[in-house]
């Protein structure tokens, strides 16, 4: 069947000027699209390049290393497939490390958020000196982990540290926080809480200061107590902040390393060996790049899963105003 010009929607009889105008439309649009493409590429390419080199490439290369047996000196990386993953999962030490990581993360994230909210509620009161207290609360967050670790080694020293005179009036002997495996993980959690809670408090405080006053006034008129207002208004309205803090705190706590390196070195025994320390230990002390990379990939996947689950289930409960 022959398709006529009329059937095609064109018109043989149409004046030449009109046809040219119609053709110019798609051409102009195409030119604009090309220009948009170029503009997009010009803006995105440098960022994408750096992301590719410094973020995605290390992940890809780490994934490749996790499938090898390499001592970091030998020129040959022996391909071993999934052996490193199988060995890790079967290794009771690695399972112990995962459990320690869970305790560590829960202690710091949960403790930090409760303490941070409590401090933010106090700082939100119209009292004298809150600005100074706010600065003092936030200050530990900007200190380097190495400095914090060194400082707390002195604080925890059972012979000369601050902990000794603090416990003496209670008739208690100061525990050897960093050399007693019963206390070491708890000691580390305390240090990280001291370092990070200021940040949580300041973010919560920003959330509190943007709360609508009228809701509180209405609740007060209805006779709601302070505790009810906190439970029924403050906490739900702070849920976007809580969600943000939860996601970022879990990720940063999983990555904690500096204070551990200075204070415990993963010990005594393996009592403070969390996943990030395990990765370092295998990579840079045992020089087992494959096992270390496999540990890092497991951490990457665990973090991805946790963040995904948080986004999937917790975000539903977030009250965006």
């Amino acid at each position, binding site marked *: 069947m022959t398709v006529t010009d009329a059937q095609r929607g064109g018109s043989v009889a149409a004046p030449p000027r009109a046809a040219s105008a119609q053709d110019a439309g798609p051409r102009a*649009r195409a030119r*604009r*699209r090309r220009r*948009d*493409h170029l503009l*997009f*590429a010009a803006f*995105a*390419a440098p960022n*994408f390049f750096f992301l*590719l080199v410094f973020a*995605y*490439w290390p992940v*890809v*290369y780490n994934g*490749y290393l996790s499938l090898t*047996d390499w*001592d*970091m*000196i*030998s*020129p040959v*990386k022996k391909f071993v497939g999934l052996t490193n993953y199988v060995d890790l999962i079967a290794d009771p*030490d690695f399972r112990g490390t995962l459990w320690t990581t869970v305790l560590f993360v829960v202690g710091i994230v949960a403790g930090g958020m409760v303490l941070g909210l409590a401090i933010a509620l106090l700082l939100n009161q119209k009292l004298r000196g809150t600005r100074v207290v706010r600065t003092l609360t936030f200050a530990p967050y900007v200190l380097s982990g190495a400095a914090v670790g060194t400082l707390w*080694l002195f604080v925890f020293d059972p*012979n000369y540290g601050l902990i000794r005179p603090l416990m003496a009036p209670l008739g208690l002997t100061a525990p*050897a926080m*960093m*050399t*007693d*495996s*019963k206390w070491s993980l708890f000691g580390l959690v305390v240090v990280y809480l001291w370092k990070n809670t200021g940040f949580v408090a300041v973010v919560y405080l920003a959330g509190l200061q943007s709360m609508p006053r009228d809701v509180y006034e209405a609740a007060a008129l209805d006779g709601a107590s302070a505790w009810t207002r906190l439970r029924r208004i403050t906490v739900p309205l702070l849920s976007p902040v809580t969600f943000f803090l939860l996601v970022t705190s879990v990720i940063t706590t999983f990555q904690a390393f500096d204070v551990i390196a200075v204070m415990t*070195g993963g*010990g*005594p*025994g*393996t*009592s403070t060996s969390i996943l990030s320390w395990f990765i370092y*230990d295998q990579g*840079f*002390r*045992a*020089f*087992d790049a494959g096992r270390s990379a496999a540990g890092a990939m497991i951490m990457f996947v665990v973090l991805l899963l946790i963040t995904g689950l948080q986004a999937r289930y917790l975000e539903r409960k977030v009250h965006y105003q």
Partner: protein
Amino acid sequence: MSPVLRSASVGRRALLGLGAGAAASALLTACGSTSGTVAQPAGEVPARYGRRTRVVLWSTFADVPGKALQTLVDRFNAGQRDIYVDVQFQGSYDECAQKAVVGLVAGQVPDLCVLSDVKWYKFYFGDALESWDDYLDPAWMDRTYQPRLLKEGRLKGHTWWLPLARSTPLFYYNRTLFRKAGVPDRAPRTWDELYEWSKDITKLEVKGKRVALEAYQKIDGDWMFQCSAWQWGGAYSDGLDVTIDHGGAVAAAEWQRRLVHRDRIAYMADSPQNDLANQLIATHVNSTGGLKMLTEAAKAGGWELGTGFLPRQEEFGVTTGGGGLGMFRRTPRERKQAAAEFVRFLARPENAAQWTVDTGYMPVVPAATKTPVLARLMKDDPNVHTAVKQLPLTRKGDQVRMMVPNANVQIYTGLQNVWSADVPAEKAFAAVAERLRKNVDRHRDSIEEHL
């Protein structure tokens, strides 16, 4: 969908494709080459030394030994016109070795590197070390260095690692406290004898705190415990057969566990050396390299330091340790020759003597003991003499601890479990032995090929 978004999605696919292509090609070429020549670490060179051959030395010495090394380097730099040695402090033995490994991957390593008695094997087994024999006459090395220590760095007929800051564990004690406790003013002959004395020693108090008998070093405690294992008739390994989980090693750890958890007269510490300096403990087994610091601390604290051979139990046992010098195969020949020149300078008796006097490390050059400066010190300070007298009785550490990567960390992690968590030695060492055996299996071929 807007044109921009539509185009963005097309662009993203294209870019992802490009990225995947780049990743795949990079995977094939694999980053981090471990062959070819390497670059020299950067550093500042004073203008007056600008035209010389620069030799970078990665050092593990801070504080007292750091200053002592810098003094010798300054003397070397001022005493000739061709070479400039640039000392770069890299942290502990472990940290320095880590940086050297990463440097080899990245293609940037020093010309000379201080490597511990344990860590140098890692580089030797990886074929990363250069033999000294092409740069220093083997006969000269034989004439110059303490034979026992030189032999430790020789394998397959070549010298790979030269002695520098070598040490042995010594028995340090607080003579003032010993006298107050009414026990003999000498090192005990056996651990049983020390245990007898402990009843009197641990009754004492200094600044309101009860004195403990001894403390065990949290990190690297496996070095001192090597001696304990031998003293109780055991070992970490027999060749590459792991033996830590039975016999003397277990008995020795049980002894220490009893002192910590039952008698409560010993404990694990971050720095037992500091605790001895502060009179929190009365005795401590520590490196000869700590002699200078402890001598000064004792003087400042108003107490007297004593040293002696390590006590025996079933037998006598003391190991060697410390650091030596290695060169990497991939650095240019010209700089290796310059590095060797500096090593010759360090081995001159007067310089080796000064190093020992300033640090407390053993005289690795026997002729140094005849120089006036060291001879006088050994005469005046019997503590310095102790290390020299004990040297002929030393032996090299067990093969598994020395040669299997991370074995030292696995052993001291097990010891931490005994000292800190009261885990029975048999159980703690069974777990250590299992890990060590796996590691031995992984590295056996490479080790046997290089021995």
